[in-house]
């Protein structure tokens, strides 16, 4: 256990940060969902053809992250066994209560879309395989092995409707997470109407970034051929959304500084004394400035594909760090000053334990395990289509 470092006067109940590392991880994972889903929608709804190679993968990635979006919360709750109370007796004046329903609705949409997208594949495999595998695919197809043109045409229609419904759902899901913090009038570092917007934009950029990194890794370590056009298109969207994201974050900070409310004194002290590195150096500095400029070059300048990809990849990783730092700075930062507005406390995550670093790391790896298992059953990437091009 790390000692808590305090300075100034804290209300006696303000010594510990109630929302720990797990609550940092929760919006991070949720954000990856929203971002990945937006990418798939860019293809399915907006017809961005360059994104075809990752269209399926982004859907499955969204699903995999979604499956573990709630788990950090369960690790954090005082009574995880009562978690379903939030759906049994939801009180809708609470920003949190909608979560169970929004989450499940969104899960259903993603699940449905994946199912319809993969149905021809499932049916083909149900016909071609034997034994327990056949049974598995038969179950996945819900026992309906009908892939005539009528039903497939119907599926295509449904997919585009689902993708279209999915966009606002993804926005609601993540904007909602921002609202959860932004609507707390008791906390001057959270309470801001810009919070949902910032959460949403940072969600989108982190989602695109993780897709870029995963896609590159998969191509690197398998015989899949990297589609440069697809990557370049993703860099383009990443840059665009990142410009918006950083401007919003900057605007919020600027408003705080300029308005200089009574509470700003302690918040600014907290930022410089407790979050000097993660806020100023990481979030605002290295991980914002470099990707902003470098992605500009990647998108606008002529350069060799290999350089472009390498540079873009570095930016994607930096952006992943930026968003994680942003989650940390918002959630932990909001709890490092006392509501007495006169004192600071500290928070260092433990290594072991229910809410420790190790648990968080394992949790974060789980979606990738899900993707791996998914790939064993149904392919994440369409190799045949790839070789035809």
């Amino acid at each position, binding site marked *: 256990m790390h000692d808590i470092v305090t300075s100034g006067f804290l209300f006696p109940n303000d010594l510990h940060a109630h929302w720990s590392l797990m609550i940092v991880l929760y919006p991070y994972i949720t954000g990856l969902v929203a971002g990945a889903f937006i990418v798939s929608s860019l293809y399915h709804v907006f017809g961005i053809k360059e994104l075809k190679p990752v269209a399926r993968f982004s859907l499955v990635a969204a699903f995999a992250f979604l499956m573990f979006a709630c788990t950090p919360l369960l690790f954090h709750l005082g009574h995880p066994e009562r978690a*379903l109370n939030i*759906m*049994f*007796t939801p*009180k809708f*004046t609470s920003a949190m209560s909608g979560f169970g329903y929004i989450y499940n609705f969104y899960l*259903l949409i993603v699940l*449905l879309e994946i*199912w319809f997208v993969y*149905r021809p594949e499932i049916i083909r495999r149900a016909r071609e395989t034997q034994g327990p595998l056949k049974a598995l695919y038969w179950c996945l*197809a*819900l*026992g*309906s092995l*009908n892939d*005539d043109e*009528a*039903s497939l045409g*119907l599926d295509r229609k*449904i997919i585009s409707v689902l993708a279209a419904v999915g966009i606002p759902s993804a926005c609601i899901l993540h904007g909602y997470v921002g609202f959860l913090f932004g609507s707390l009038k008791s906390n001057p570092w959270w309470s801001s109407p810009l919070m949902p917007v910032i959460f949403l934009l940072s969600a989108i950029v982190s989602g695109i970034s993780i897709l870029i990194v995963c896609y590159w890794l998969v191509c690197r370590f398998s015989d899949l051929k990297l589609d440069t056009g697809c990557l370049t298109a993703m860099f383009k969207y990443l840059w665009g959304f990142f410009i918006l994201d950083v401007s919003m974050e900057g605007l919020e900070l600027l408003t705080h500084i300029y308005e200089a409310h009574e509470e700003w004194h302690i918040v600014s002290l907290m930022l410089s004394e407790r979050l000097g590195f993660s806020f100023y150096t990481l979030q605002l500095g290295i991980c914002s400035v470099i990707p902003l400029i470098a992605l500009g070059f990647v998108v606008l300048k002529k350069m060799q594909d290999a350089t472009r990809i390498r540079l873009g990849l570095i930016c994607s990783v930096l952006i992943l760090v930026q968003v994680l730092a942003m989650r940390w700075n918002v959630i932990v930062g909001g709890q490092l000053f006392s509501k007495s507005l006169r004192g600071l406390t500290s928070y260092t995550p433990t290594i072991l334990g229910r809410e420790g670093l190790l648990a968080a790391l394992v949790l974060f790896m789980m979606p990738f395990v899900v993707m791996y298992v998914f790939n064993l059953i149904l392919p994440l990437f369409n190799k045949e289509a790839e070789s035809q091009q």
Partner: protein
Amino acid sequence: MIFDNATRQTNQNNTPAAYTKRQTYRTRHEEEASFMKAYDHIIRFALLITAVIAGFFIIRARLVPESFGVQGSYSYAFYRADSADEQAALPAVHQGSAHCSACHAPQASLRQTNAHAGLECETCHGSFKAHNNNTKERMAVSGSVDACMLCHAALTARPAQFPQIDSFSAHVAQQNETLLPGMTCVTCHDPHAPM
């Protein structure tokens, strides 16, 4: 019953008119079938989801306590009504001076007319709970200097009119007495009637 129906139908359908009727029926049936075929998987999925949702509501009905609900205002009074009554039934730990007086008449009457009249027995002696099994030691407080200084030590934050003393030794010296070993505040003041 079903068999009967079937035979009756075939009997009736032997007329030419019924024959054409059956033709149209069949084509409609086929149409319906191909339509159903295209929707087959969707219906299955819908049934699955419906089953899950129905299951959710069945479980919910079993798990939500009966007294849970809106007790007036939804915003501020949406709760399990029994919870308030459960809390109201918690035992009180502090009993009040009147309760002590029944058994400790001397202290009670001493206190009545004195500077400490406004003080509750439990303020100094702690809650009555410790007394429950009649172990008098638990209830007893030492007449130590610190016990009195908790309230009477001079602090700038204390209201000026409240009687305060700077330190034990200074106070004793002020009374033109010599500080003897073992002397505490209760040597000169009865805690129940200090002045």
